[in-house]
């Protein structure tokens, strides 16, 4: 890019923005409450992890699966799996993210939310939604897994609950936008602080993407489950679902990226390597997260090959910003390690603060995510998908994304965030380190087993312990996933225990309580070009691209809709 010297100088940021912002008590309470719900969901959802894993190992009670032990509390493997998926993948993530974003937006912009009540309204809607959806799941009236593919028909309350959770998160998002708008009016020339910037983009992406399941539930599933619609079109609903389904993964992932970009470098003792490329990555995620959902439908009978091809290419494109992130984050860590005295090509790695309870989980999350990313590129590779589609490879893969990159990062975040919010110091930081490594090792064992099983052809979402067709060469891998799953369970409960004990501790002196880490960038963000801080062009491109690659086929599917499938309750 060419440029000429000028006399106009960049307004110094320091003059425009306060250096710090202290969260008020009520803000802390609000964020803390969201984390509480998230952690509660994780602790219940994780109960079912080892059950499924042990199930895999072929442990049966009198020829029936382990779930026989839990009757009548738990009707089946699939009810457990629904709870595991909904609570861990949807509730833990969404509640943690809205809470975390409340912090990144307010602290990043150095101002309180414009309408805190809007935040509360959204949060209350999410809680009501959670409770509404929980009832049918718990009484086994919604064992449809977290993808709830029709014509398996759940009780209407399940769909209503999901709508409330999603709309509640939208309402919290509106609060962020208004806050941002106010801040922008006050600071027209300042680059949006990165942590707020990433959070806002993630929220906007989420609101565009969730239109898919909003339409699915409101126009098809809800009226159908209420008996107002005699049937639905299953293929159309798959398309609606995966319109949301893939960006959903980015909704989980990007908050971790926010932390890796805007916080981790500081925690590791360094600076962000490249501000402009960080921003560019986030814009690419906004533009490319949604228009590629057909890559989840490569083996669907009702989607023409040309659209599958186009979406496959776009999925390759969205791999790019993640590859960029890998470089930037590792380079930021290298910078930190060298600041701490690391020498030589890799000598900086041992110099990283591996004893920091917040840094280690995030680095380990990143390491696991390397393999998650490779698996993702493989899934997206059009016909390669035929090898692993709907095999255990897929849950193996998304345990590396949502359960590693996201969850393990969130654990690392919680290790400074919960003490910060409650004014305590973390209980047993050494145990917290052990917890992170436990999770890492458990996940490595578990997901390796799942991936290998998938390559051997084992179907996902199946209690393979009771399946009649399991060949001998799956057995060692089944055992491996069982061991991994059990270790993960221990990791999850160590995490919950550490947080609970921390909260119950006596308040600590303020100087011992961790502060909010905000990484500086090596390059002054003010030197990042203005077009990397503008919404209009990127939003326009994002929407155009979605219309272009989803519009025609969606229009075709909607105008040829055949609502011929009545509901079934086959569990």
């Amino acid at each position: 890019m060419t440029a000429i010297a000028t006399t106009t100088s960049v307004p110094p940021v320091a003059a425009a923005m306060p250096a710090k912002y202290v969260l008020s008590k009520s803000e802390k309470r609000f964020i803390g409450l969201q984390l509480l719900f998230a952690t509660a969901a994780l602790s219940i959802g994780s109960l079912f992890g080892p059950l499924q894993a042990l199930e895999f190992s072929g442990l049966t009670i009198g020829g029936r699966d382990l779930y026989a032990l839990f009757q009548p509390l738990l009707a089946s493997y699939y009810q457990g799996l629904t709870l595991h998926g909904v609570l861990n993948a949807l509730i833990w993530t969404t509640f943690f993210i809205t809470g975390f974003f409340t912090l990144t937006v307010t602290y990043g912009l150095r101002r309180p939310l414009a309408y805190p009540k809007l935040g509360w309204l959204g949060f209350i809607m999410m809680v009501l939604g959670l409770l509404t959806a929980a009832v049918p799941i718990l009484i086994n009236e919604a064992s449809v897994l977290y993808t709830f593919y029709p014509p398996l028909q759940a009780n209407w309350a399940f769909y209503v609950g999901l709508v409330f959770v999603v709309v509640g998160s939208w309402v919290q998002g509106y609060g962020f936008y208004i806050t941002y708008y106010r801040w922008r009016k006050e600071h027209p020339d300042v680059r949006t602080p990165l942590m707020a910037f990433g959070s806002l983009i993630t929220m906007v992406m989420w609101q565009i993407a969730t239109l898919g399941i909003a339409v699915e539930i409101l126009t098809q599933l809800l009226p159908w489950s209420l008996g107002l619609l005699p049937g639905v079109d299953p293929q159309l609903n798959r398309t609606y679902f995966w319109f949301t389904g893939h960006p959903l993964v980015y909704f989980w992932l990007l908050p971790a990226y926010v932390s890796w970009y805007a916080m981790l470098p500081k925690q590791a003792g360094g600076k962000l390597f490249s501000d402009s490329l960080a921003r560019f990555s986030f814009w690419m995620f906004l533009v490319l997260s949604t228009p590629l959902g057909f890559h989840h439908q490569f083996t669907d009978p009702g989607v023409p090959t040309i659209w599958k091809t186009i979406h496959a290419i776009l999925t390759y494109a969205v791999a790019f910003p993640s590859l960029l992130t890998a470089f930037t984050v590792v380079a930021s860590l290298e910078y930190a390690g060298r600041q701490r005295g690391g020498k030589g090509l890799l000598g900086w790695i041992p110099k990283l603060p591996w004893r920091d309870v917040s840094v280690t989980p995030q680095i380990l999350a990143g390491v696991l995510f390397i393999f998650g990313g490779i698996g993702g590129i493989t899934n997206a590779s059009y016909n390669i998908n035929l090898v692993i589609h709907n095999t255990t490879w897929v849950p193996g893969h998304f345990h590396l994304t949502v359960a590693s990159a996201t969850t393990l990062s969130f654990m690392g975040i919680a290790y400074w965030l919960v003490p910060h919010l409650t004014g305590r110091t973390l209980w047993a930081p050494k145990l917290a380190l052990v917890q992170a490594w436990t999770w890492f090792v458990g996940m490595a064992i578990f997901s390796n087993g799942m991936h290998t099983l998938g390559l051997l052809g084992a179907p996902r979402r199946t209690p393979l312990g009771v399946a009649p067709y399991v060949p001998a060469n799956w057995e060692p891998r089944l055992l491996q996933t069982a061991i991994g799953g059990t270790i993960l369970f221990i990791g999850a409960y160590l995490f919950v225990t550490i947080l609970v004990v921390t909260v119950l501790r006596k308040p600590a002196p303020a100087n011992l309580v961790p502060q909010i880490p905000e990484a500086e960038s090596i390059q002054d963000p003010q030197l990042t070009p203005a077009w990397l801080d503008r919404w209009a062009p990127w939003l326009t491109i994002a929407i155009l691209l979605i219309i272009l690659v989803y519009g025609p086929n969606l229009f075709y599917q909607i105008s040829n809709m055949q609502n011929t499938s009545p509901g079934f309750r086959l569990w």
Partner: protein
Amino acid sequence: MAPEQKPDHEEEHFKPRGTVLIMVLFFFTIVALWGYVYLIMVSQGANTP
């Protein structure tokens, strides 16, 4: 480029050599693992006439 800005702090000298090494390893890991599944697909054969 802008008039030769002599970097005046050590930050500008930072060359992420270790990162490049890690990325090279990363690159070959991607190619190897992806290629492995690709070969499995090819060995499983055609599914159109």
